């Protein structure tokens, strides 16, 4: 049977269900010290006198360091090979003379236990001469705004993307629809806070690190550079990770600090983040305002989209560089046909926590803006919203389609698919028309029920490459090592399925080691829904090469030609013997040669053996790299039915449906899990989640009491339709990636349904749609005479 395509039970589960997994904070080393980070309590200030004497005098405190005590390079940009003009905006590991957001690391205290370290941190006395903060992207780019950096404008960059002649399209359009929309500041909030442990070995001049994930090979290179040792002397150990969603595993100041301090102090140094610091320290995301316009002809055909975006990046440029605004503009046209397009993003620094990627970066925001535009246009033009989309989606005959845009250093070429076909199926299989009828009936009865939908385009499978190694030991066990990392997405199971099919073994006889730099010297990582697409393809190639080697050896061991052999069930068998066996006769052939040989026996025969003429050189295994030039573009539809409580303004999602074309689902159960979990996370972003700041730049949502995640109460049942009609041509698996499509259109679909419930298709225009904002909308729509 084929394991690829089956709902194979997850290999990760037994350890995770029994508390025997290894999360970073589970690791303790002998003689370990604990680090506590002293963080700025103010949004914008110059640093005055620092007094560390009180902290140093405290029992158990071993060291206190401020920015003046260290000379460390800033946090580099990972994504862009040439950060160029961004260099002046990079974050120092510890603040140098000035702080630019609440939560910025100013000093560290290292002590024998974490309680003492925290006591010590409380005693570090710092004078802050406060400055006015830059509060949001639009005002930060304007005249008279407080400047964050000497001789550098707050507007870091103007990111643009365009094709065709948008000005002409808008001039000649029969209808122009324009609106302002905004997506609030949000963050991923994995349930496991970050944790890092570093141990220096003076004799070997080497460092061991626990807690890295996502991009361990990149982080290793940076840390090795800081310490001035070869990357091979830094080992990032694999760990279980309690959710990634984009934020975990990027290189942060703390990654440098634990490594630096472990060597400086000659003892292992551990840091485990608490939730309050996580909320101000880890990357934020979203936080964009759009002025978006669409030009339509008299038949409701979209001619052009124009969008001016203000992207609030927080205080520094971190590892992602300009990734999020770049993806916002390049993915904004989505799955639609248009003759021209023009988008400009003002990327601004403000006195808030710096931003990076969060699941479906740029697409969650851009899909919201574009789909709100289409709902508004449908209302203005008097066309049904589904019909308007149907009319404007690129058809299967128009794909592949070169967008004439660039994203993440690649040309955006939309690969094969059937966008209108999936829309039809989603509408039919969800029962959307009956949802809408039901909603109308409810509204007639005075209830505020509505339906909405959004169509979206995703991207996945970013290159440049991934590395995988497959090895078989003499006991027949298969080990897969890969550069991607396990973030909870079930990647170990998926990669085991791929290897198991090729080698004809069970997935549970395959052990997968993901993201351990000690096991695999090179690799890229897990982000952008690339682990299955790129990592899985590397595993496929390595397993195929291993299988070929096994057959080559078996041909010698069995005295047969390759055409006479079959690799199945963990052994290479003579086809003649297998056929004899299937006819109910003894499978073993008489004579000196056996009828089959197991992978373990082959591994034993090849172990430690150089090429000796007959047998190929061992060991039994292979390492392969898989490279891709282009991304692949999965697509989908979200549909929602919601009810609004007229009294409180609370929105309840009654029904939710996600349709997604994934090319190939290696494990339908984990794909489904990604979509359902993503949808609920996206509904959180649609209705509840916002990182709020006071006018002084103080964070108002630094706990899970204030930053509201959906619980089982708020989570509707999510139905899914996963299609595999258009396997990707970019990789041998045909996979298109499944990690992000569950979240991408959630904000757009929920807003669409809320607008329908209120009878105001063009609002809401701002996420999250909090009860307070809904009450304002109800007031505005019911009392046209009111001042709201």
């Amino acid at each position, binding site marked *: 049977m084929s394991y690829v395509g089956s709902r194979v039970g997850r290999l990760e589960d037994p350890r995770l269900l029994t*508390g025997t997994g290894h999360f970073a904070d589970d690791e303790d080393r002998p003689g370990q010290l604990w680090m506590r980070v002293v963080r700025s309590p103010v949004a914008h200030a110059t640093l005055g006198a620092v007094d560390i004497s009180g902290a140093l005098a405290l029992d158990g405190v071993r060291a206190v360091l401020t920015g003046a005590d260290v000379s460390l390079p800033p946090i580099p940009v990972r994504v862009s090979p040439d950060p160029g003009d961004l260099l002046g905006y990079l974050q120092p590991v510890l603040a140098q003379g000035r702080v630019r957001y609440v939560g910025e690391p100013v000093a560290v205290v290292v002590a024998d236990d974490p309680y003492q370290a925290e006591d010590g941190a409380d005693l570090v006395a710092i004078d802050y001469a406060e400055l006015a903060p830059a509060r949001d992207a639009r005002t930060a780019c304007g005249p008279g705004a407080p400047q964050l950096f000497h001789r550098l404008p707050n507007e870091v960059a103007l990111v643009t993307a365009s094709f065709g002649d948008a000005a002409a399209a808008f001039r000649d359009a029969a209808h122009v629809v324009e609106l302002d929309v905004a997506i609030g500041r949000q963050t991923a909030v994995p349930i496991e806070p970050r944790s890092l442990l570093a141990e220096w070995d003076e004799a070997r001049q080497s460092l061991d690190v626990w807690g890295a994930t996502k991009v361990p090979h990149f982080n290793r290179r940076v840390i090795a550079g800081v310490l001035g040792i070869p990357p091979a002397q830094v080992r990032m150990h694999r760990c279980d990770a309690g959710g990634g969603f984009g934020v975990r595993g990027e290189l942060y100041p703390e990654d440098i600090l634990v490594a630096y301090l472990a060597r400086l102090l000659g003892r292992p140094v551990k840091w485990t983040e608490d939730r309050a610091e996580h909320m101000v320290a880890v990357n934020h995301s979203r936080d964009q305002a759009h002025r978006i316009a669409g030009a339509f002809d008299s038949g409701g055909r979209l001619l052009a989209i124009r969008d001016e975006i203000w992207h609030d990046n927080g205080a520094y440029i971190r590892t992602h560089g300009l990734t999020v605004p770049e993806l916002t503009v390049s993915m904004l046209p989505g799955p639609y046909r248009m003759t021209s397009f023009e988008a400009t993003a003002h990327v601004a620094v403000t006195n808030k926590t710096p931003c990076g990627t969060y699941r479906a970066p740029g697409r969650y925001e851009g899909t919201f803006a574009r789909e709100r535009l289409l709902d508004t246009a449908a209302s203005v033009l008097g066309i049904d919203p589904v019909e308007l989309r149907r009319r404007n989606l690129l058809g299967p005959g128009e794909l592949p389609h070169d967008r004439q845009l660039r994203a993440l250093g690649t040309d955006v070429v939309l690969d094969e698919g059937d966008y209108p076909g999936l829309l039809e199926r989603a509408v039919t299989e969800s029962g959307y028309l009956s949802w809408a009828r039901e909603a109308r009936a409810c509204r007639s009865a005075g209830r505020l029920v509505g339906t909405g939908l959004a169509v979206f385009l995703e991207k996945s499978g970013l290159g440049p490459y991934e590395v995988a190694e497959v090895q078989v030991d003499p006991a027949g066990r298969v080990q897969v090592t890969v550069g991607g990392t396990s973030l909870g997405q079930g990647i170990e199971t998926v990669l085991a399925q791929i290897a198991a099919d090729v080698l004809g073994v069970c997935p549970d006889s395959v052990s997968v080691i993901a993201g351990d730099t000690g096991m695999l010297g090179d690799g890229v990582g897990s982000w952008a829904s690339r682990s299955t697409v790129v990592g899985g393809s590397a595993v496929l190639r390595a397993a195929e090469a291993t299988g070929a080697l096994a057959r080559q050896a078996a041909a010698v061991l069995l005295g047969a030609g390759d055409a006479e052999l079959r690799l199945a069930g963990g052994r290479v068998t003579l086809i003649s013997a297998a056929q004899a066996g299937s006819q109910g006769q003894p499978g073993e052939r008489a004579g000196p040669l056996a009828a089959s040989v197991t992978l373990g026996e082959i591994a034993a025969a090849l172990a430690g053996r150089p090429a000796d003429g007959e047998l190929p050189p061992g060991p039994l295994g292979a390492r392969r790299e898989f490279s891709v030039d282009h991304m692949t573009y999965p697509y989908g539809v979200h549909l929602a039915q919601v009810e609004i409580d007229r009294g409180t303004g609370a929105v309840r999602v009654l029904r939710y449906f996600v349709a997604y074309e994934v090319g190939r689902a290696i494990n339908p159960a984990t794909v489904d899990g990604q979509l359902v979990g993503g949808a609920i996370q996206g509904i959180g972003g649609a209705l509840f989640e916002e990182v709020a700041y006071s006018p002084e730049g103080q964070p108002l949502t630094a*706990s899970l009491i204030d930053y509201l995640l959906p619980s089982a109460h708020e989570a509707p049942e999510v139905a899914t339709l996963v299609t595999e009609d258009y396997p990707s041509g970019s990789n041998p698996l045909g996979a298109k990636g499944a990690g992000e499509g569950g979240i991408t259109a959630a904000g757009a679909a929920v807003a669409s349904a809320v607008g329908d419930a209120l009878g105001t298709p063009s609002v809401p225009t701002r996420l999250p749609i909090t009860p307070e904002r809904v009450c304002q909308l109800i007031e505005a729509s019911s009392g046209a005479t009111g001042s709201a």
Partner: protein
Amino acid sequence: MTDAQSIRITVNGTEHELAVEPRRTLADVLRHDLAYTGTHVGCEHGICGACTVLVDGLPARSCLMFGVQADGRSVETVEALGTPDALGPLQQAFTDHHGLQCGFCTPGFLMLVTAFLRETPSPTDEEIREVVASNLCRCTGYQGILRAVRAAADAGAGS
């Protein structure tokens, strides 16, 4: 802050005697002093529930309890529910119904539901949703967790 107190605490049937500072949380005692690392800490302010353990049979947030408060009491953690080779019925239901992804919140849910099913062996779907809403999960969207608890209850895991 070194006025450690001696406590006696039974964890999963094994008695431990140790000296702890009064301010040390039960979660830290379990994880870092006694090596029961299956109990996880997600927020340290009682919201997420990842650190849920049973104290004398009742679910408690071990981040909101001090170790000294567990003196003389019996604590159950996820390590008591089964082993990788022999999962308990609730653990089996979680894997069967894809009730976990990253697995960080999972021990808290398992302990919460263990106590719930002992008390309410035949719950309604609404009762299940109510109790599952006590803890936070960021990966699954709760669907698999709700199904797993339903299946475990139907299979008599709580009886």
